[in-house]
């Protein structure tokens, strides 16, 4: 079973890298970009065949290692 985790900085946490990308887009002439937030996508290939068990496993992985929940939020896609 495949899983995909999206990790983003929480709303309200200033994202200096996203801000730099936004500035660069403006310099390149892409007007009207009001905000850019940069995150990560982590793909996992799991032995687990049951979707709900896999979701629970990946959620534990996010809480333990994949995201720092002090500053980041995450979402899990299964399949």
């Amino acid at each position, binding site marked *: 079973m495949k899983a995909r985790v999206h990790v983003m900085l929480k709303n309200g*946490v200033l994202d*200096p*890298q996203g801000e730099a990308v936004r500035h660069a887009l403006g310099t390149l002439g892409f007007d009207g970009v009001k905000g850019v937030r940069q995150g990560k996508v982590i793909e996992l290939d799991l032995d687990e065949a049951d979707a709900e068990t896999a979701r629970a496993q990946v959620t534990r992985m996010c809480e*333990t*290692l*994949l995201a*720092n929940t*002090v*500053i980041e939020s995450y979402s899990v896609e299964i399949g």
Partner: protein
Amino acid sequence: MHAAVITFPGSNCDRDLAVAFAAAGARVTRVWHKDTDLPEGVDVVGIPGGFSFGDYLRCGAIAANSPICRAVVAHAKRGGYVLGICNGFQVLTETRLLPGALMRNAGLKFICRSVDLTVATTQSDFTALYQQGQSLRVPVAHHDGNYTAGPDLVAQLRDEDRIAFTYGAPVNGSVADIAGVLSENRRVLGMMPHPERASDESHGSTDGRQIFAALTGALTAA
């Protein structure tokens, strides 16, 4: 006093930290990240600067989940002392022994220079030999030192007098210019600047030396 200094793959200030502890009179044992236990009778654990595990995923995140870090967390929870410098501070926030998080510097650049630090509290066994408000000259060398905490946490850290050091002028975007914080029991200190690189005459500053001297004094007397 017995200090343990941990080495992760990618640590690069572990030797300097061991030298600074030894110069202050500590007995120092070097510990490998795969070890599952700290040496018997360790008083203080030093988590050094560097780029543990290549800073993959997030700075300090993989080190914080290494076998030795489980022993470090247990040591801290028993009331043991821990000093985390630079990457060591990042490891301590990732283990949640210290609150907040260290994000990419606001200016996005790696910053490597000496900065002015202000001693924000002398009420700890790390900072007891300084004067309140004393200005120190200590190097920083980091890409991710932007201390991030919500307003409630900053207020709590202030109320509990747990901000150990602040930058004399903004360096990396840290909230309230925070450069180092203490745990609730004041026995865990994390700081981005490198006191071990300001502890020998040849470094150009010896302002960091008193942290090691204060710890050795406090823990040897006890």
